[in-house]
């Protein structure tokens, strides 16, 4: 019923994704293809994949050629720009679009006539260039719009609707894509949505050329006896080699087991664990009859391929994997796998929370980071453990400390905070839920240094105290202009190579040295930890923020509440002075601007029934350059209040009022 307009209303209870969209928000206009067309099933899978990935529709550019398949971009992602170009030339248009803007997601939709005949060359060259795209061929083996001529993917010996036998060999686009070096290649069937959706999700997430050949029967011209691309034939011969699921970039999964054999297997699994993996369930041995409609996944580079099916070669591994996952999930026999881990990380008590990529690293963190400076200082071990538990259990994950914390306390040598975090990690078993950031460079008794041997030595000490094999984010705490940046970075390079550090960050560093470091060609800082809050804006916003945006550095701000000033609990310097730990640090905030900030905070807080601290943090979280402000707390209650900031959405007017009050 293609002449009926699609209704705009929908059930209010439709599931929503991280962006708050329902799958209806990913639809386009009503399809004008034949009823039952396989292409419409692919459209539905694309909609589902984009919905599940929480992709902003307008950040997708959908580009196609000419033909039935190339009409389909009209039917999905109605809020995306689409481009129905010319026959067989989608790849060049997509390549050009990609040259112009690397920030969009490029979805190329093509047909078998498009890609295997007139556009065979463009298909080949786009793939060999590794253009960052998801290239989907809706392969029905015929030219539908011109009444059913064979296409180049029609199998030799197959019969056309008019009874003609195809005497030419077919072109296998999957084999071609592999030959041409696509980083992600898959074949699926439009009628198997369960398989196709995760494949599309993985293809979209894959950085580089992703190619999917989807067998998509043409109900009008290629759905008869004798066709090898009819629904009946494909269903009959469809042999899914494995069941697939797609898990996007997440923390490593830690597997614990008492059995030695399983421990070895677990280590192997962890060694093979990449940023993204596939989940294999009930995989059956591949029967290998060579027909096109079986799911074949090939990742030419495991570390690049987000969907990493290995069931074809090692089908037994799936069940083993499932067992480990079940053990880890603590539910014998349950087959939950990484999805459970995903849920563990992503179900905060504060309702929806969106993780953010830290710089260009593979670290994804919740929008508030817990400061570990209080651990062992004004929070004892018990309180610290409670704080850490509460923080992680609420759905947050990133914890910041430094090797020197809390050396300023009389009798402390530094490392106290790390030791508490390490103790908590060991006791709680929540390493897989935490992103651990620490720092090096402060005085640990031998003076401040960022020399290579010092960093390497200190890293070992931190690893021991933290009781981890790897520091997720290792940061230069205080820079030393006398040490060449190359020396510092080469230390980090070594640690990264050894697997002891995942990503590096900078903190107290001059603009010049930061730029020099980023241009060095050695490992890049992925984050900056500046002093930045609603009061202290100028230095960061004028000097560092432009670099962070240009270089795509994550920003995790310290002093996010200006040593407590922005909590509003102190209303005068005298009042603040009563707190021996903080009073001295906040008194200088009590100038006219500081008081204006407090006034604005009070007003905005009142509107949202929130606290000034929550508003202050929400202001930081809303700033495009900021990944997560760092906050510390000395009680679980206080922490709970602070963390509500992640769910607080300030209006444009709120932000403008705060900006105005704090203008420097």
């Amino acid at each position, binding site marked *: 019923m293609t002449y009926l307009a699609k209704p705009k209303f929908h059930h209010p209870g439709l599931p929503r994704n991280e962006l708050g969209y329902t799958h209806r928000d990913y639809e386009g206009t009503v399809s004008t293809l034949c009823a039952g067309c396989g292409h419409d099933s692919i459209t539905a899978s694309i909609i589902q994949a984009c919905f599940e990935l929480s992709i*902003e*529709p*307008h*950040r997708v*550019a959908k*580009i196609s050629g*000419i033909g039935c398949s190339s009409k389909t*971009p*009209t039917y999905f992602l*109605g*809020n*995306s*720009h*689409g*481009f*129905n*170009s*010319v026959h067989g*030339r989608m*790849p*060049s*248009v*997509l*390549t*050009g*679009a*990609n*040259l*112009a*803007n690397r*920030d*969009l997601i490029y979805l190329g939709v093509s047909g078998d006539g498009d890609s295997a005949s007139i556009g065979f*060359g*463009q298909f*080949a*060259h786009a793939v060999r*260039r590794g253009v960052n795209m998801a290239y989907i061929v809706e392969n029905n083996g015929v030219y539908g719009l011109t009444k059913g001529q064979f296409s180049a993917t029609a199998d030799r010996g197959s019969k056309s609707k008019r009874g003609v036998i195809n005497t030419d060999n077919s072109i296998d686009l999957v084999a071609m894509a592999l030959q041409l070096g696509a980083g992600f290649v898959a074949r699926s069937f439009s009628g198997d949505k369960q398989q196709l959706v995760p494949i599309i999700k993985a293809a979209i997430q894959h950085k580089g050329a992703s190619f999917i050949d989807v067998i998509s029967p043409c109900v009008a011209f290629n759905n008869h006896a004798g066709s090898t691309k009819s629904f009946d034939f494909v269903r009959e011969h469809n042999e899914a080699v494995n069941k697939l699921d797609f898990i996007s970039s997440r923390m490593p999964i830690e597997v614990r087991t008492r059995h030695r054999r399983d421990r070895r297997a677990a280590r192997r699994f962890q060694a093979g664990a990449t940023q993204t993996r596939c989940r294999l369930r009930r995989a059956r041995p591949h029967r290998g009859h060579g027909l096109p409609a079986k799911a074949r996944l090939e990742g030419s580079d495991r570390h690049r391929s987000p969907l990493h099916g290995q069931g074809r070669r090692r089908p037994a591994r799936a069940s083993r994997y499932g067992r480990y996952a079940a053990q880890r999930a603590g539910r014998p026999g349950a087959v939950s796998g990484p999805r459970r881990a995903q849920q563990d990380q992503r179900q905060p008590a504060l309702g929806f929370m969106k993780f953010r990529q830290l710089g260009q690293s593979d670290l994804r963190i919740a929008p508030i980071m817990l400061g570990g400076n209080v651990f062992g200082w004004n929070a004892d071990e018990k309180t610290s453990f409670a704080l850490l538990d509460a923080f992680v259990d609420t759905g947050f994950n990133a914890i910041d400390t430094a090797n020197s914390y809390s050396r300023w306390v009389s009798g402390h040598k530094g490392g106290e905070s790390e030791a508490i975090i390490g103790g908590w990690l060991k006791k709680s078993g929540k390493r897989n839920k935490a992103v651990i950031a620490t720092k090096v460079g402060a005085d640990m008794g031998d003076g401040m240094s960022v020399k290579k041997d010092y960093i390497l030595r200190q890293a070992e000490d931190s690893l021991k105290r933290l009781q981890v094999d790897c520091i997720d984010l290792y940061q230069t705490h205080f820079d030393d202009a006398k040490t060449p940046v190359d020396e510092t970075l080469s230390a980090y390079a070594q640690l990264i190579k050894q697997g002891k550090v995942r990503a590096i960050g900078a903190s107290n560093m001059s603009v010049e040295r930061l*730029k020099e470091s*980023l*241009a060095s060609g050695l490992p890049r800082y992925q984050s900056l930890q500046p002093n930045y809050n609603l009061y202290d804006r100028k230095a960061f916003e004028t000097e560092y923020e432009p670099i962070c945006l*240009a*270089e795509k550095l994550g920003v995790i701000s310290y002093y996010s509440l200006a040593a407590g000033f922005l909590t509003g609990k102190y209303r005068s310097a005298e009042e603040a002075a009563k707190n021996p730990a903080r009073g001295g640090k906040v008194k200088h905030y009590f100038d006219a601007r500081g008081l204006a900030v407090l006034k604005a905070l009070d007003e905005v807080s009142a509107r949202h029934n929130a606290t000034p601290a929550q508003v202050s943090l929400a202001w930081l979280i809303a700033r495009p350059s900021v990944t997560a402000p760092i906050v510390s707390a000395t009680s679980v209650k206080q922490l709970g209040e602070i963390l509500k900031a992640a769910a607080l959405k300030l209006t444009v007017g709120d932000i403008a009022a705060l900006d105005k009050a704090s203008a420097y």
Partner: protein
Amino acid sequence: MSTATPISRVNDFVVRFANVNGSGSASANEMFARAVMRMGIPVAPRNIFPSNIQGLPTWYEVRVSEAGHLGARGGTDLMVAMNPQTFDKDIASIEPGGYLFYDSTKPLPPSKFRADISVVGIPLTAICNREYTDPRQRQLFKNIVYIGALTALLEMDVAVVEQLIGEQYKGKDKLIAPNIKALHIGRDYALLNLECPLSLRLKKCDKVGDRIFVEGNSAAALGAVYGGATVCAWYPITPSSSVADAFTKHCGKLRVDPETKKAKYAIIQAEDELASIGMVIGAAWNGARAFTATSGPGISLMQEFIGLAYFAEIPAVIFDVQRAGPSTGMPTRTQQCDIISCAYASHGDTKHVLIFPENPTEAFEFGALAFDLADRLQTPIFVMLDLDIGMNTHLSKPFVWDDSRVYDRGKVMTAEELEAGKDFGRYLDVDGDGIPYRTYPGTHPTKGSFFTRGTSRDRYAKYTEEAAPYVDNMQRLVRKFDTAKDLVPRPLIATADKPTKYGVIYYGSTAPPMDEAIHMIEARGHSLDRMRVRGFPFHSSVNSFVADHDFVFVVEQNRDAQLRSLVVNECGIDPVRLVPILHFDGTPITARFIAKAIGDRLDALKVKPMKVNS
């Protein structure tokens, strides 16, 4: 001894070097041209080369003109005949009274020469065999040796040539001394053994001024850089490849972030011309300023995409460096033969905007302007260069760029405007100029997206096969094309000193010889008003110029009078009133050809200007 009086001229003659391609002569010959320029004498070199890597004939013509005539003149006053393959034809092309300079190592019978020319023989091969043992050096230094001899014969400033050698081999310093030595071997031989100087001489003057020596393709590429192009997709084809090469070079200097060292441009050598224009269209659709450079065969291959860009209204800039067609034609020879194929490129009713630079200076200016026009008009813009402009080094006015100039990105609706509720219809003619608003992909989460397509659609980009929206859209495209008439560079008109009923229209690389030819025509007692067309669609002044004259000559470098056809077709003018003057042998049109063709017609028709009583 010549039976004709030797040509005697100072700073006004044509030297033609006949060489074998791949023999290393090009750099020596260009050094000669540069030396003339350094002496303050205007010079116009032209490279006539084969579509071949090594072994076929190549010529390098240097026109020396203190008067500043930089077009091809025709004829040769001094032939440096270094290619036995073309020796006879080369001698035949020498002007009566001219000179032949040749390698006299092997004695040639008198029948090989002409009686009406002067012959200057130097045993170059013998000299080089004596001085050098390496066969490659013998060949390479032979070129410098003959340049050395010419410095004596033409009374050149040898210090200038020495300086040029120093500059050319800067960084390869050990080559400087041997080259200077070779230069002096030739010079000394000539001074000792020949009558120096000839009656053709060079004399220092100051007529070059601040002009620069630059190829049109390089200038166009620089224009693209200044015009804000960030994406170049191209496929190698003579004579346009050097546009992309130059763009790469210029971007390397001008478009690398000084701090991050990151390239702020993208250049891609596509798999063919179809892909290159596809990439340009994809990039421009996505908000970049993008271009391709090609030649006639590439234009043929791009037809379908060009139609898409026209109909879907996507900006694109195409530098067409024209060469002699049809088919592969003469790939290394010049013509203005793609006018029709560009103006009406693609199937269906299509019309495209063309701009015609006359030289590198305009190639730079129009190269930049093209991107503004493309964005403003949301359509492909063709910059109609040719091989003569593009691949030859021209003495050109310095390029001028106003740093305060702001790019015209045309009608682009922003997220703020969409948010404010502004009505967005991709093909909605809001302002009555036929130009709709567009949005860049990714502009707004819920507003402003549309589906770009080559199929018919309504004003809101919704697919339709209904007649009325289709006609509405096609008529709007005509309105847009009319708008372009006042946006493209306007024709330049030069009125004759005396009132005349005759005019001439010309464009592109025909301009320099036309400017010279007009004096010759006037010397024959005829007056002509001139109009140099610089853009298509034609400005209304083209109609009035033709209307104001009884006859208008249209001078072109193609067989079929393509621009004339455009004028007839688009301006509704009686073809009888447009007299084609056509030159299409692949060589650049010359002043002599134009003057003769027009002069003869005016003489034959006995249409001489009326006497005007003072």
